[in-house]
């Protein structure tokens, strides 16, 4: 049990100016921790951010008016009847298909910049509400129900910018339209995991017939603090992405994060380069999400588009999920309201690839030795075995003051190794700043691997292709009787809840 006492003699650590004549005295404070857990390195994720991070890999479904106009950004003056699915939209098929790729959830676009709503909203007539047949299908409701049925997470994309609405740019748009729309969508389930707010804000548009340019100052216009409050009141675990301030855009749409990537950030940063790496020591927890396309055309479906190769998408996976970011991969349904066959097949292939390459964990059969193990608490231990027990709540850690460590895995027989995966216990903050990986064929001589990669941060999850190449990471692998991970630098005592070798 660790008890930490704070001595009143702390006055000595204050400057002479502060200590001599003050009538204010520091109070001795004791915080009993029977489990001897390390002090958190702040900022730390909230409970909803932790749950969000665990989603890791999920889908984006851009479907709506633009599917039928062949545009990426609709002007907002499209007649509702242009939206005409040739079959009843099938969000269950969308989610089943992406599940086969290993995705754990999806976000459906239910209102894009054109303002057309895919649920029967009370806030505008520019929606499915007065349509019939396949077009009247409530995408938001159907999507939420399908996700629950399949045991997947779900959320919605609602464009703050509304080029159709006459109210956009005026005071009442936010209160009478946008906030109401978010509240309506919240009612489709209190188990939503993310609400996506596009950063595109203001420009020309229909605006109820005005046909002009309208711009807003996003620093206040959408009243994000109260929007968050209102949504969280219903959807406790719904992370407000982007403008919402609980997860940040990774800074590109090509499907990669920085090799160094911190979950901490400074919201005042305007640089996309820094979005890719986060800010070490930033004051706010805002992990990165990478949005990228699985097809080679736009975000919405376009005739003639192709689905990217499984190897290309696996590279994206390694460079996002494998670099402490989540990946939201866009798979647009076509005019039938379903995912095209090529997409379905491509997703299956990607799933097989991920499963093949990252499915069989060799760490479970290794003997693992660590340079130090944190002293156990009353019921909690910090043994090396915690890294391979499959329990996200347990973790290995060193003692306070030990910021470097080695972890050595050995096998009696040489194993073909290609990837090393590590996960910090980010509940206590992100810590690891630098590490290296070595292997041995004979148990005596060690050689460093992946030297061309910045083996710096770990965070929620880091996957290192041992040949240092994400484009062709599989290769022939390395015959290893041992792997050694040396944590060379850490903000505080390092923690790892998972260590896997594939």
């Amino acid at each position: 049990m660790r008890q930490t006492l704070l001595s009143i003699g702390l006055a000595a650590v204050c400057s002479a100016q502060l200590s001599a004549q003050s009538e204010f005295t520091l109070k001795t404070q004791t915080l009993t921790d029977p489990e001897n857990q390390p002090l958190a390195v702040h900022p730390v994720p909230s409970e909803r951010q932790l749950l969000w991070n665990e989603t890791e890999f999920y889908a984006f479904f851009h479907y709506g008016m633009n599917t039928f106009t062949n545009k990426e950004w609709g002007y907002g003056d499209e007649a509702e009847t242009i939206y005409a699915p040739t079959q009843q939209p099938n969000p269950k098929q969308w989610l089943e298909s992406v599940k086969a790729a290993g995705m754990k959830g999806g976000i459906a676009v239910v209102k894009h910049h054109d303002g057309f709503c895919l649920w029967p909203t009370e806030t505008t007539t520019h929606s499915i509400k007065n349509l019939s047949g396949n077009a009247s299908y409530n995408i938001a409701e159907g999507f939420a129900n399908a996700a629950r049925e399949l045991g997947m997470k779900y959320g919605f994309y609602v464009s703050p910018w509304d080029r159709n609405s006459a109210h956009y740019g005026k005071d009442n748009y936010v209160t009478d339209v946008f906030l109401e729309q978010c509240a309506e969508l919240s009612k489709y389930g209190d188990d939503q995991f993310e609400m996506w707010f596009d950063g595109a804000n203001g420009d020309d548009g229909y605006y109820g017939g005005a046909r002009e340019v309208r711009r807003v100052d996003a620093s206040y216009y959408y009243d994000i603090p109260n929007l968050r409050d209102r949504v969280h009141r219903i959807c406790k675990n719904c992370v407000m992405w982007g403008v919402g301030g609980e997860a940040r855009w990774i800074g590109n749409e090509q499907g990669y994060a920085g090799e160094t990537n911190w979950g901490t950030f400074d919201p005042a940063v305007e640089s996309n380069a820094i979005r890719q790496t986060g800010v070490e020591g930033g004051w706010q927890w805002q992990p990165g999400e990478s949005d990228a396309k699985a097809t080679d055309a736009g975000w919405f479906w376009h005739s003639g588009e192709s689905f990217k190769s499984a190897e290309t998408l696996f590279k994206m996976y390694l460079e996002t999920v494998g670099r402490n970011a989540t990946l939201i991969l866009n798979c647009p349904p076509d005019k039938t309201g379903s995912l095209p066959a090529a997409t379905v097949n491509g997703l299956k292939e990607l799933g097989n690839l991920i499963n093949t390459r990252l499915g069989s964990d060799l760490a479970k059969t290794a003997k693992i030795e660590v340079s130090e193990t944190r002293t156990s608490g009353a019921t909690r231990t910090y043994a090396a075995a915690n890294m391979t027990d499959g329990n996200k709540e347990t973790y290995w850690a060193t003692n306070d003051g030990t910021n470097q460590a080695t972890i050595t895995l050995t096998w009696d027989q040489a194993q073909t190794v290609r990837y090393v995966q590590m996960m910090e216990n980010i509940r206590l903050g992100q810590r690891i700043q630098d590490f290296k990986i070595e292997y041995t064929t004979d148990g005596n001589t060690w050689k460093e691997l992946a030297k061309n990669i910045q083996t710096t941060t770990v965070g929620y999850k880091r996957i290192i292709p041992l040949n240092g190449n994400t484009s062709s990471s599989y290769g022939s692998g390395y015959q290893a009787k041992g792997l050694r991970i040396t944590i060379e630098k850490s903000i505080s005592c390092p923690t790892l809840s998972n260590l896997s070798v594939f």
Partner: protein
Amino acid sequence: MKKYFLSALMLMGITATAQTSITFDADDFESISVYDSWEQSPFRKGQLEGNVKVVSNHLNQVDEVLGEAPNATGKMLAFQRSRYAGNLYGARINLKKPFRLTKERKYVHVMINKPVESRVMVIGLGKRTEEAWQWQDGETEQFMAVTNISVAADGWVDAVASFNGFSYEDTSKGGIEIHSLVVVPDVRSAHADAADFACYIDEILVDNNGAPRFSTEKYAVNFDRESGKARTDRYMTSVGLTGGTLTPQSAKLSEDHNYYDLTTTTVFSAKAGQTITPTYGYAGTWMHTFTYVDFGCDGKFSVDLGSDFRPTAKSDLVSYQFLEVDGAKHNSTGGTPANGNLIGQASPAFTLPADLANGFYRMRYKVDWNETDAAGCQNAGNTILGNGGGIVDVMLDVHGDKVKVSQGALNGEVLAGDGAHFDNYTTNYGQPFKIKMDPADGFGHIGVRVKYGYNVSSPEQFDKNGNPHYLVREISYKLFDEDNCYTLPAEIMVGEEVYIEGLFVESKNVPDPNAKEASFPHVSPEPKAGKWVVGTKSYYIQNGGSQNGWMSTDYADGGGNLQLTNATQPENEAGEWVVCGNDEDGYSFYNVAAGATKVLGVTGSEAGARAKLYAYGQEGSAVTTFDFAESAGGYSFRLHGTTNNCLNFRSPYLALWAHANALSSDAGSRFTFFEANEELGKETEGLCMQPTVSSTLSATYDLQGRRLQSPARGLYMQDRHKLLKK
């Protein structure tokens, strides 16, 4: 509360609109407590109780820089910053009267005094007022306003941060009300703090003025001075002056920072009463120039504009292109610019006071948007750095017609070019001036050190504001002609006096002027006739930090190929190495045990390469010369003339790796030197110790101009630049 630095708005009677003011001296707050944004905080869960109270102000001493007490109030708020809290933990002040958020940015000022330097935040807690929002409890974090830069420790500072929020045009519809303010004194994580600390908070004010109410920082800058260039598409490229006494007068910037302190390298010249024009080079558009001169030499740039928006006689802001107040646009000549796209146009000229005393004055060039604060705009969303602005400080020399020239030296004398002695000698200001070195018998020279400016005989180079009394320039013997003459450039012949220190040394110690530059810090003179010469030093060389091993001829295979095994540091000559050479021809390695007649060479490629010792003349195709680069506290060595084909540890051999990372970050390419034998060579007839001029003229000096051997942490001068050694 006194105000030392006031924006133009304040001085023109456009008073700041104070919405909230908490002094703690009056009954101007409802209650106090603590608040932690961290949901799992022990202060939220009731495990710990916060410590905060209103106390008498014992920190009311006079500040020696300000000349008065920055905070002489009777009461202040004391708060215990706990190491068990989150990083957004602070003192909570519940307001007597809530205030509404507006779309327009407001500024919250907090006087704060704490023992750690870090950024400060103010969190506004509140709720929306409309009927539909009555379910809110007033605990919603409506804004988190954080200072742009760290707030200094151990003294009162006026921390300023901006915020805004949604509001209706018609405020009767409702809006967002702030009921409580939380002052977070330190947004860092406290996990590594050894103890809690006390901080003091006072005079909280919300208004529409972003400039600090006072500042003790000399020539303040509202961003990190060391920060790299904020934008690659917009940045300052040069500054200059026209209409002064010298032509040209300009300084090109390195274009890699946001702040440039050129006060020890750049002096622009003008005379009292002259009309001069600041010039700016800038990559980008839609910005404005603001130019300041610290006429009062008080460590700050004051702004004082008249009712016509022209600078008054009290103003240090002397020239600006654009200032918009209540929709009306102004510049420093009383003009009305049409729009704000002015950076490509000339800045307004200004006239120096006719009675301005001669001397160096600090001059600031600032590119910013619509902001007279010399430290730079702080408005969130419109910051000086966010807009690609920047600041450059130089010295302005207001001068007379003549400059006194004097000299001092041992073992020789510095003369005028015509041979005249410097006895009460004066010459024309700002004109090139020829000098001649006259060493005593048996002596030569390695150059001169020149001090130029004011008070050149003072041991203190810098005044209390950090401005130089004089500048220092070192001139290498290499620049002198065969008659030992050199012409000092016009830019040195400024100030009131130029003092020249001749650097005379024994003839035998005068370097060969044709000697090639050798910048590797551990270089020794070349062996002569197979023997080490005076000045030769040997080193133990370790590879890859503690992981790989040491270079030693004791670690070699049967063919003599060097291996780097994970062994302990050698203690014999087999592990001692000497490096000779120069930057142009490359450097070579010699082994003490093997003697000065053998040299390290490497043959083969990449992992198959092998390094071993070769006798002179028997190197064959082996490469024996290397170029070096610094590498994370050590050095990398690449084959001479190659880009990145580096000596590298390819277990167990010393081999090669041709890769960009081999040069920059790879541990296997990193060689660290440890002193072994400080003096291997003996005096040999005809040979002598060769002190390199670069080692003399790259010496480190403190700010008083005293040379230092092993400077500790602090601010120093080296190669005419200020150097912060951390």
